[in-house]
C-alpha cells in the first residue's frame, strides 16, 4: 500500500495535539499511515508509542533546534524530507492556523496541489478523493488532484475514523534549517486549562449563547445548561465581540464549524454566517424571544421565550430526569 504522510502537531512540551488521531485515522483510509514529526533534539522518541497506539505504521522524526522557535519551517523541512524518503501518495495536514501554511508551502515546493479543508478522504481506484463541506454545509463537494502530489488539509475535528494500533517503524533524521528570513516564535501563551468541559470541535453536544444573553455574567446560564447536558460551550460572533467569551468559542463561518448530535442556540438570531457553522448538526434546539428569528428556520425544536426564564427551568428539568434515571 502507498505511504500516506500525516503531519503531527505537537504541544510546547512535545506532547501530541488532539488532531493527531484524526490525521492518522484519515491516512489509514488511503494507505499506510506515516506520522511525520518535527521535534527538538532527543524529544521525538517520546511520542512514538502514542503514535503507534493511534495507528502510525511508520514514524519519521526530524529533530533540530529550530522547533518551537521558528514558525512553520521546521515542519516544512521535516515534511519535505519525509516526502523524499517515503515517496507518498498523499500528504495530510491539519487545517489549523499553525499547520496549514506548511501544506501551502509544500505544494509550491514540490509542485503538488492542495485540496483544502477536507472533512473526509477516500481512495477511489487510483485516485484520492477529498470530501469538502462548503458554504457552511450547504454543499458537499468532492475534489481530486491531477498532475502532482496531493496535499490535503483536514478540518480539525471532522475525521471520526481511527486507525488500528501498530508498532511503528521509526526513522530519525537531523533537521538543519538553512539561514534565511524566518518567522520567529517569541512566546507561547498557554491558554488556561479547560474546565473539564468537552472541546468545541468534535463535541457530541454543544450549547451556544449569543448577544441575547446581554452581559458577560449572564453567560453563566449557557455554561450551566452545557454542564447539565455534558456539552461544549459555543457562542455567536456578536457574543464574542461583546467579550462574553473568548474567540475560540465562536461557531460559524469564520469560527468553528460543528456538527454535533445536539446543538442548542440560546439568544442567537441565527444569522446566515452563524448557521454556516452549525446547520449540519443532527438536532437543533433554539430559544429566542423573537418569534421571527431566522434560527427557527433550522431548529428541530424552537421555543419562543426568554432565556432567563426558560433555561433555569430547563436545567432543573434535566437534573430532575437525570436523578430519576439513576
Amino acid at each position, binding site marked *: 500500500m502507498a505511504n500516506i504522510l500525516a503531519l503531527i502537531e505537537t504541544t510546547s512540551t512535545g506532547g501530541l495535539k488532539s488532531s493527531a488521531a484524526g490525521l492518522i485515522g484519515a491516512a489509514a483510509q488511503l494507505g499506510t499511515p506515516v506520522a511525520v514529526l518535527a521535534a527538538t533534539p532527543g524529544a521525538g522518541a517520546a511520542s512514538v508509542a502514542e503514535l503507534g497506539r493511534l495507528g502510525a505504521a511508520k514514524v519519521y522524526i526530524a529533530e533540530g533546534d529550530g522547533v518551537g522557535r521558528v514558525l512553520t519551517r521546521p515542519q516544512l523541512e521535516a515534511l519535505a524530507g519525509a516526502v523524499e524518503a517515503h515517496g507518498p501518495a498523499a500528504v495530510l495536514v491539519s487545517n489549523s492556523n499553525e499547520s496549514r501554511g506548511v501544506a501551502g508551502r509544500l505544494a509550491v515546493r514540490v509542485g503538488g496541489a492542495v485540496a483544502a479543508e477536507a472533512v473526509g478522504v477516500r481512495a477511489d481506484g487510483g485516485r484520492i478523493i477529498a470530501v469538502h463541506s462548503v458554504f457552511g454545509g450547504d454543499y458537499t*463537494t468532492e475534489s481530486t488532484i491531477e498532475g502532482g502530489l496531493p496535499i490535503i488539509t483536514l478540518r480539525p475535528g471532522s475525521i471520526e475514523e481511527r486507525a488500528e494500533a501498530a508498532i511503528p517503524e521509526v526513522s530519525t533524521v537531523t533537521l538543519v534549517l538553512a539561514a534565511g528570513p524566518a518567522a520567529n516564535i517569541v512566546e507561547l501563551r498557554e491558554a488556561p486549562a479547560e474546565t473539564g468541559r468537552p472541546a468545541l470541535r468534535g463535541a457530541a453536544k454543544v450549547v451556544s449563547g449569543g448577544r441575547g444573553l446581554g452581559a458577560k455574567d449572564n453567560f453563566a446560564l449557557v455554561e450551566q445548561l452545557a454542564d447539565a447536558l455534558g456539552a461544549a460551550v459555543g457562542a455567536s460572533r456578536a457574543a464574542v465581540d461583546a467579550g462574553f467569551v473568548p474567540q475560540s468559542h465562536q461557531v460559524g463561518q469564520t469560527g468553528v464549524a460543528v456538527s454535533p448530535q445536539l446543538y442548542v442556540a440560546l439568544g442567537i438570531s441565527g444569522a446566515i454566517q452563524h448557521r454556516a457553522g452549525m446547520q449540519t448538526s443532527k438536532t437543533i434546539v433554539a430559544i429566542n424571544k423573537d418569534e421571527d428569528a431566522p434560527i427557527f428556520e433550522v431548529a428541530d425544536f424552537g421555543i419562543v421565550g426568554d432565556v432567563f426564564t426558560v433555561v433555569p427551568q430547563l436545567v432543573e428539568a434535566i437534573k430532575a430526569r437525570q436523578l430519576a434515571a439513576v
Partner: protein
Amino acid sequence: MAISTKPTTSGTKSPRKPLPGWAKGAAAAAAAVVVLLLVVLLARWLRTMPAAESFLIQYPGHSELPDGAPTGLPAWLGWQHFLNAFFMLLIIRTGWLVRTTARPKAYWTRNNKGLLKTKNPPKKISLDLWLHLTLDALWVLNGIVFMVLLFATGQWMRIVPTSWDVVPNALSAVLQYASFDWPTENGWVNYNSLQVLAYFATVFIAAPLALATGLRMSGAWPQNAEKLNRIYPVEAARAVHLPVMAYFVVFIVTHVALVFATGALRNLNHMYASRDDAGWVGFWIFAASVAVMAAGWFLARPLFLRPIASLMGKVSR
C-alpha cells in the same frame, strides 16, 4: 476547499411565476377605478333625490366656528406645517427601513457620557433606527411648539370640533366630494367638517398614538418597570405602531390630492404664504419645500449620516 469562479454561468433561469407583480398591480388599480366610478355614480344619483338635497341645504358641510375664532393662517403655522411634513416623510421612510432591513449597513452606539449617562451600557442600534429616533425627537419638539401656539392663538378652534353638527356636516361633505360637486367653503376662514375631523384625528389621536407606541418600543422605555410593562406590553405597541403609520400615509396622500384638486394655488397660498388669493407665491414656496424634502430623502443615506451620527456616538459595523 477552493471555490473557483467562472465568469459566465449557465442555467440560472428564474422559475415561472404565477402572475408578475405589475399585472397584479394593474388589476388592483383597475378594480379601484371601477369601485370609485360606482361610488361617484351612486353619489350623483343620490343628489337627484329631493331628500338628499334638503339634507345638503340643512347641513352645508361645515359647522359655524365659535365667536372669536381667528381668520386666516399665520406664518408660524406654515413653518410648523412644513417642518412637520419634512420630519414625517423621513420618519415614515426610516421606520419602514428599520422594519424591512435584515442587514443594516451601519450601527450606532450612544456616547455614554454627559447628560445621557446611564448605568447600563448603551445598546447598539442600526443607523436607520438612530435617524428614525433623532427625527422623532425633532418631530415631537416641533409638535410641542405647535400645540402651545395652537392653543395660545385660538387656532385650535379651526381643527377641534365644537358642536355635534360636525357629524352630519361631515357626511354632507362626503356626499359632495363623492358626487364631484365639491364643498365650497373657504379654507382661509373655516374648514369643512370632514377636514376638521381628519385634522383633529391626525393631530390629537394619530400623532400621540405614534408617539406613545414608539416610545414603548424604544430603548428609552424603562425595561424593568414590571407592573407598567404588564399593563402596556410591547407587543401591543408593536401591533399599533404600524397601522398608525398606514393611517398617516393614507391621510397624507388624500390630503395632498385634495389640496391640488380643490383650488391648488389658493390652498397653497393659505398654507405656505399666509395669504388668501390665487397667485403663484404659495406654489413656489411649496415647490421649494418639496425640493428640500427630496434633498433630505436623498441625503438620508449612510454616507452622509455617518459624520452626523458620529457626533453623538460611535458608528460601527
